[in-house]
Structure formats: C-alpha cells, structure tokens
C-alpha cells in the first residue's frame, strides 16, 4: 500500500516551481515579520503572495487547477516558511489541512465550486474546530447544525479561529442534525459571503502574534452539498486527514522555526566581528550547540519516519500508529522549544533576549512556546498513556 491515507493526491516530490513559490512567500514574510509581530496583525502581504504564487493550492489536484502537491511538499513548505516566520508557516499548513479534507471528502459539486477558487488564489480557508467549554476536544461539539429545505443552518461560536478575519471560507465542525450525542459531528464548508461574522475580544498573545486567532461567532445558511463527508462522520475525517496533517504540518513549522534560529545563531558566531570576541573553543558553547543541533536532528528523523508511516499505512487507528503520530507532535513541540531556549543561554542577553538581535531568538522562543499548548501536550500524554496500555507487545509503527 503506497497511497497516502491522509492525502490521496500524494505525488512524487519536486513539482516544478514549488520551492520558488515558497521562497517568494518567505521573502515577503521576512519583509513584514517585525511589524506583524509587534502589532499582532495578520500577515496579509504573505497571504497575498500565497494567493499570487498559487501556493494556496499546493494540495489542490491539477485537474482543478492546483499544484497537485502532496505531504512531502507540505512538510518542506512548512519547514521553509517556519525558518522565517512561524505564524505564516502555521497559517499555511492549517489552510492546507482544510484543503486536504475537502479534496478527500468533499462531494463533486463542492470540489468543482471551491477547489478552482483556491487555485485562483481566492480561497484561503480557516478552521473552526474550537468551542467554548470543551477544552480543545476535537471530537465533540455542543452547537448543533440544523437542516431544512436543502439548506444547513449554522450558528456557531469559536473562541479561536486563526486568520478568521481574513479567510475566504471556513470549515466548521458542528454537532450533526439529529445527533445521538455531541460526539456525532459533521464538517461543513461556509463561504465568507454566506455567513455573518461577529468578532469578539482582542488578540494580544505572548507569541504567534501574526496568526491573529480571534474569537468568532458565525451564523448563516449553506446548501447541503457544502457538507464535507457524511453527517456524523467527522471522526473519520479527523482520523485520516485533520490529525495526521496537523501533527506533520505543525511539527514541520516548529522544526523550521528552531532550525532558522539555530542557523542565525551559527551565522552570528561565525561572523568576523563576533568570532574574534567569542571563544569558539569554549566547551560549554560547543556542548550547547551540539545539544541544540541534536534535538533538531531527532525531530527531523521523527518527522520523516512519521511521514513515511502515514503514506504507507492504510488504517491510522491502531494504538501504535496513533502513538507515533502523537509522539511526533509532543517531541517536536518540546524539543524545538528547548533547543531555542538553550540557544538563548548560549548567546546571552544581547543576542538571546533582545528583540533587535539578528538571531530573532526572542521571537522564536515566544512563538515556539505555543507548540506544547497547540492541542495540549498534557492531553496527548493522557491519551498516549491509555494507548500504550492497549499495545502491551510494544510494537512500533
């Protein structure tokens, strides 16, 4: 079995121009990142570049006008953008996660309407999965979708919607019509002009400031063909697309952010003005650089292994497979943050702690602090403990 369970559009790497498109977006992100971070505003210029370069359609099949990319391309783009700006990288991979869900589970009318729009640069998708009071649980929803006369009626509040004010459309999880319980969920697409959006609250976080993740109340009605997958079957979409793409995509962004930080530190240490002042023979310095590099190599190895596992595994539900997917997320979150934290110690106050240092460690550290919280590592450890009990032979995926 070589077809990706998470993305049927997996293709050979190296689609012409993808790297160049990513590089263009990264260049625009670099130009604006200090302002978007300082003012906690969405990186509209980088988003515009994603629209103009066609990168928004990375995972849209070629027959719909997209680039026809696969997981390999998504991971590489996440790392490359993460090296520059973690907010931009996360915005991009989360959009791709939504696109992958539509490609795999959207009906033909929805795909025919939406995917060419994304390919034309007019379809930036945000995800509406959070809900007040459910503590980040992906697989339950209190707000119920209702239906009548071929329409689905949406009335949904979400405390965190990354890019919500700039998205052209939303994939929204809600309790299914006639659900037996909050666990029976549907995923529905809502175009911005089909919905009334009310924003509440302010966005002033520690890091990830350019991700502009606001609270939104969405109301409106959409035709029934905008249902993604079957009513009550969001669990399948989560298990086959949302979770694997989230863990792979996020880890790629975090690895990129930490790799960018390490790279900038190494360039600083080797620069003519610095190398004469610093003692590059310092055993403490060398050990700390070694540790930071080792942490990133571990994450890279896990990312590659998990990517291969997802591509080659038909059923991602067995405990050993889930454990690997979760281990990647937990390890990438912890190790990338720890690597950058140790780099702050390594270079000290001037280049480790101040905003204007070319190392940009200060921002990388703040941004990476979100990694363990972005679907909480604590929650994943609880799940993993139980999953481990279900795999008493300890077989590895």
């Amino acid at each position, binding site marked *: 079995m070589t077809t990706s369970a998470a993305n049927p559009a997996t293709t050979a790497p190296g689609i012409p121009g993808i790297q160049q498109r990513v590089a263009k977006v990264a260049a625009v992100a670099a130009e604006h990142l200090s302002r978007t971070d300082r003012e906690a505003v969405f990186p509209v210029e980088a988003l515009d570049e994603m629209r103009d370069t066609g990168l928004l359609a990375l995972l849209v099949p070629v027959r719909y006008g997209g680039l026809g990319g696969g997981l390999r391309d998504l991971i590489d783009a996440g790392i490359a953008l993460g090296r520059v700006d973690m907010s931009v990288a996360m915005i991009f991979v989360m959009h791709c996660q939504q696109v992958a869900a539509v490609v795999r589970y959207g009906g033909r009318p929805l795909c025919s309407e939406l995917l060419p729009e994304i390919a034309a640069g007019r379809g930036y998708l945000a995800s509406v999965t959070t809900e007040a009071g459910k503590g980040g649980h992906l697989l339950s929803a209190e707000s119920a979708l209702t239906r009548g006369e071929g329409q689905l009626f949406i009335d949904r509040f979400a405390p965190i919607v990354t890019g919500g004010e700039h998205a052209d459309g939303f994939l929204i999880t809600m309790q299914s019509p006639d659900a*037996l319980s909050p*666990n029976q969920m549907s995923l529905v697409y809502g175009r911005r002009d089909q919905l009334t959006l009310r924003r509440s609250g302010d966005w002033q976080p520690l890091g990830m400031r350019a991700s502009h993740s606001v609270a939104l109340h969405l109301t409106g009605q959409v035709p029934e063909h905008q249902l993604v997958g079957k009513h009550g079957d969001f669990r399948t979409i989560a298990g086959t697309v949302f979770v694997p793409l989230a863990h792979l995509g996020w880890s790629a962004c975090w690895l990129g952010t930490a790799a960018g930080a390490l790279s900038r530190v190494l360039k600083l240490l080797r620069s003519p003005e610095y190398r004469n002042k610093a003692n590059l023979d310092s055993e403490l310095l060398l050990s700390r650089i070694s540790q930071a590099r080792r942490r990133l190599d571990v994450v890279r190895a896990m990312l590659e292994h998990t990517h291969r596992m997802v591509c080659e595994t038909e059923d991602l539900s*067995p405990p050993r497979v889930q454990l690997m997917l979760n281990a990647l997320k937990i390890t990438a979150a912890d190790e990338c943050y720890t690597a950058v934290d140790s780099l702050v110690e390594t270079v000290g106050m001037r280049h480790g702690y101040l905003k204007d240092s070319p190392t940009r460690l200060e921002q990388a550290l703040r941004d990476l602090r979100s990694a363990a919280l972005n679907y909480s590592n604590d929650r994943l450890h609880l799940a993993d403990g139980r999953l481990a009990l279900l795999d008493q032979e300890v077989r590895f995926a």
Partner: protein
Amino acid sequence: MDARFTTMLVRFLKFLGDRPITPDSPLHELGLDSMQAIELLFAIEDMFGVTLSDEELHDATFATAGSLWNAVAALLTAGGVDADQVDAA
C-alpha cells in the same frame, strides 16, 4: 449479541438514553471515548475470560456494538466456547 455483553456496554455509553443496544449501535457516537477503551477491554476480559489481541484494537473493532461482539465471539469460539451458548446463558 450476548445479553451480559450489552448490559456491560451500557455503562460506557453515556449518551445511550433509553435506546436499546443493537448490533448497529455506534459506540463512539453513543459516548465511548478512546480514554475508556482500556476499561472496556478489562470488563470484557473479566466477564468472558478472553483477551483481544493488540492487532484487533483498531477503530473497526470498536465501531459498533456488533463489531466488538464479533471480535469477542470469535475468541470465545476459538477457545471452544459456543458464542450462542453464552448468549443463552
């Protein structure tokens, strides 16, 4: 399905309400979360004296009451116990 099996399942299905458990009853939708899967396995082991292998612990096994019972019944049959006899017990 064995009556003891369906009775045991009830306490894991917090959204079951007054509905009867049928082979098509969807376990996750009725409230079985992955956190409880281990407790459910222990309950099956204690009641029927069979252990589901690691290989059987995937979503398809836990999809419905019927799919889970089929996995248990197969072990009972393999162990020389007639699942119908259990049913009648």
